[in-house]
């Protein structure tokens, strides 16, 4: 408790992230309205008791859509980060242990992927693969693994000079055992911090891709495509952009604060 009071970022971030997880898990059942049910008589209706966030241009309940959007957004971003982490961690860790030419080659590839600014690589891949949630996850993972590869490689390179690792090697531990038993667990702290920020980043990237029409396709409710659809009605129905916009902002804020908090926690140790 005192730790949380001394680390307000951790507390605030934790609360927001927990709320988000709750929304993703239970929101769709709390919002009893069907997120896909069209009712043109309610088109663009403002917030009311039956529809707390109002209705969109097709009369669909915005609250239900935001809740389903939370499930999609969190589901995609967590799977992308887990995939990126597994791929990047394995590649970076192996490169560091192998050293020499292999390490050089792998890091060149990482440099080249990183030479694509921001989400450009994901945009290009999503454009080629076509819209769809699996393709979206692949595109975001292709963009995301490099950061973890770099981080894990750097950590392993510095860790493997430590005495306990030398000792394990001297006792005859194979490279694979070294990697899984001694190195990767020690890397877990910095990786957890980066992964926390990473989830926030992927939530933003997913929303951006869906906004551009390269991610979740209508009628599937995603915060990004809801924002895109709401832009036409800025003047008459600003609630259409407000609800998903605040949802994205809060989600990213939550993971950023949590990341800050975790970094402070790891730094104190």
């Amino acid at each position: 408790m005192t730790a949380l009071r001394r680390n307000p970022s951790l507390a605030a971030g934790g609360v927001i992230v927990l709320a988000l997880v709750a929304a993703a898990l239970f929101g769709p059942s709390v919002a009893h309205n069907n997120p896909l049910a069209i009712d043109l008589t309610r088109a663009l209706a403002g917030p009311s008791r039956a529809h707390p966030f109002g209705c969109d241009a097709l009369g669909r309940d915005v609250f239900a859509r935001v809740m389903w959007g939370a499930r999609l957004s969190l589901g995609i971003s967590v799977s992308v980060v887990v995939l990126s982490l597994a791929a990047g961690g394995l590649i970076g860790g192996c490169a560091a242990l192998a050293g020499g030419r292999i390490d050089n080659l792998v890091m060149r590839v990482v440099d080249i992927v990183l030479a694509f600014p921001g989400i450009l690589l994901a945009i290009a891949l999503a454009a080629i693969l076509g819209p769809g949630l699996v393709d979206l996850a692949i595109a975001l993972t292709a963009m995301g693994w490099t950061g973890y590869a770099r981080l894990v490689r750097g950590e392993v390179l510095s860790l493997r000079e430590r005495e306990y690792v030398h000792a394990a090697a001297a006792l005859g531990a194979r490279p694979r055992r070294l990697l899984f038993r001694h190195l990767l667990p020690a890397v877990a702290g910095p990786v957890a911090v980066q992964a926390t920020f990473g989830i926030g980043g992927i939530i933003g990237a997913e929303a951006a891709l869906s906004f551009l029409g390269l991610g979740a396709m209508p009628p599937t409710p995603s915060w990004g495509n809801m924002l895109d659809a709401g832009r036409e009605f800025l003047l008459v129905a600003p609630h259409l952009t407000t609800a998903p916009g605040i949802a994205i902002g809060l989600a990213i804020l939550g993971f950023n604060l949590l990341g800050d908090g975790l970094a402070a926690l790891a730094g104190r140790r």
Partner: protein
Amino acid sequence: MIWYVLRRLATLVPVALGVVTLTFALIHLVPGDPVVAMLGDTASPADIAGMRHRLGLDRPILVQYVDFLGGLAHGDLGESISYHQPVSRLIAERFPATLELAGAGLLVAMVIAFPLGFIAGAKPGSAGDVGSMGFAIVGISIPHIYLGPLLMIWFSLDLGLLPLTGRGGIPHLVLPAVTLGTALAAVLARMLRQSIIQVRDSDYMRTAVSKGLSPTLALFRHGLRNALTPVVTLLGLELGGLLTGALITEIIFSWPGLGRMLISAISARDYPLVEGAVLTFALTYVFVNMATDVVYALVDPRVSLR
């Protein structure tokens, strides 16, 4: 110094070649047939074969690659399918608008970040610090795709102060630039704060203050320059985000730049144009990064010794 610049230039070649190769591979090797996508599932095999031949896609992949590199060397990126014009000409027409937007976004970011970071770093824990960092955490979290519409509602629709969309004079540039620059401003302000706090603790600052300079004056005269070095590095790293941010901002504000052309080329399945636009963004980023490194070396002579 000159050796450093030359060495840095030499590392540019493999990365640039890698970027070109990866872009080519994306378009030509990823499963999914661009020709079928362009013509639709109902196209006859003869039409598909004809289109494939017209685009040169029926040749061996290596021949296509060498041809692509050769064309690139002459600045020839092929012909756009939807515009029936050379891709390079289309890019030359649209890219200046993107650069204008990115430049304006960068300016906004610095104008916001420097005072905030300075106020926060000069007196950590003060109301100014809390306020600045509060802005920073919100600024990092608010996505372009929401900030843009929000600014449009406030400043164009409600107040009627600024134009809603399109490109024109300075008024047209304000909202897109703020949309684009806010996130970067937030990142820079946080970095500057941290950097100033570190510098304040250094011996030369203590000397300056003990000589009788006021802490603020000492920070201005001696500390600021040193505090800026890590900020410049971060700025270089963040420019990629600025470029893709510009791409998304263009869509929000109907800004006639390369990003908007890329997205419409994607929906039109205009693959030569997609390829050219992706390549332009990526190579620009590579060049800008190199330029940042060189400028950095010029500012801080210690860098070139490393």
